[in-house]
């Protein structure tokens, strides 16, 4: 299983039936393909849709119906459409149960950086700052390291997306929960040792006596 598959399969296990979920563009989008059997959630697309469904059958694309990345999607039975103010009212107002976002860096205090690399990549924050500041639960789905360098750091070196602490970071190496006490190692990927995860992490991890193996 490649890193991305491990990450999105593990994130999918976090979704609870009947909740409202927003998946960020890129890797997080793929979480939708790995929902556990019997779990049905409502996907919000911040461009104004609640009840987003998969890619439409060939020839059934509607130019007025895309996801937040601009790709054609469907609206499921019971979907609702609305303007951008309502869409972010749902996000900011505590109505969005979970957001899953990609990350460039997360620091010791659980602060995420994922929207720009000064002098290099300035795509803009889109809805990411609202999602991280507003969602009830923030899950970061990212690779544990970039070119061998840790992405879970003592302090983010990149500009922050929000000062709000994310709740969970899922990588191909580990599951880490961020609480007031700090980042706690909750699971380790199959075949890895705790020491290997700690070595690939700059932030100081809280390591409980028992750390289960990720079941993906």
């Amino acid at each position, binding site marked *: 299983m490649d890193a991305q598959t491990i990450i999105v399969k593990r994130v999918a296990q976090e979704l609870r039936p009947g909740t409202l979920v927003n998946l960020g563009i890129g890797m997080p989008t793929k979480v939708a393909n790995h929902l556990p059997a019997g779990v049905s959630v409502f996907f919000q*697309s*911040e*461009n*104004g*849709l609640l009840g987003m469904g998969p890619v439409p059958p060939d020839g059934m694309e*509607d*130019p*007025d*119906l*895309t*996801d*937040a*990345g*601009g790709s054609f999607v469907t*609206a499921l039975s019971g979907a609702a*459409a*609305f*303007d*951008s*103010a309502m*869409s*972010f009212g749902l*996000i*900011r107002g505590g109505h969005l149960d979970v957001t899953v976002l990609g990350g460039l860096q997360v620091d010791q205090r659980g602060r995420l950086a994922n929207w*720009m690399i000064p002098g290099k990549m*300035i*795509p*803009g*924050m*889109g*809805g*990411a*700052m*609202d999602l991280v*500041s*507003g969602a009830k639960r923030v899950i970061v789905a990212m690779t544990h390291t970039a070119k061998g360098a840790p992405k879970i750091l003592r302090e983010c070196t990149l*500009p*922050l*997306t*929000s*000062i*709000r602490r994310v709740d969970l970071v899922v990588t191909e190496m580990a599951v880490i929960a961020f609480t007031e006490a700090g980042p706690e190692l909750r699971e380790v990927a199959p075949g890895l040792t705790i020491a290997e995860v700690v070595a690939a992490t700059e932030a100081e991890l809280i390591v409980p006596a028992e750390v289960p193996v990720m079941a993906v």
Partner: protein
Amino acid sequence: MKGIKLEDCVAKIPDGASLMVGGFIGVGTSERVMDELVRQGKRGLTVIANDTARPGIGIGKLIDAGALSRVIVSHIGTNPNTQRQMIAGDLIVELVPQGTLAERVRAGGFGLGGILTRTGLGTAVEEGKNRIEVGGETFLLETPIRADFAIVHAKQADYACNLAYSLTAQNFNPLMAMAADIVIVDAEDIVPIGVIPPDSVRTPGVLVDHLLNRGA
């Protein structure tokens, strides 16, 4: 009557004007107004929109033509030409979190002096803004945005210029229809009064200044 030819309508927009343009990566943007702005060689425009779409699509056409001097958007990640012009110093890009942008446009149209949000607090977005405490919590004060013109794309307009939108093509369109001095509407269909029932009207016709002719 508010009906007007595309060419005559776009001729009313002077160089240097500020334009709100509905749409989300081109979905819900009037392509023919973009084309005509380019054809008439407009220069120095400011565009307020969710994004600058892609090269050759929606607002991307204005970027390609060098018609813009400034954009206020939530992201430019889908348009490398925008990034290029920004780095070259030909285009000022003001990045605003998407939910905050929606509320700032709404505040402009709804006669509010501003809104308070957690989004952006403690990030680069905070620069130059006031912090306000409410109930022991800190928020950023975000100010209203208005424009000289709004380019609104609708699914239907009736003879009273009441508007209805379609799915994710709605996005910023109804908000912008409230927040500009002159509101220009491009509707896919023009329908008899009553086709859009009172409860389905999202933009009352009194807000519309010009409705583009469908015919030649």
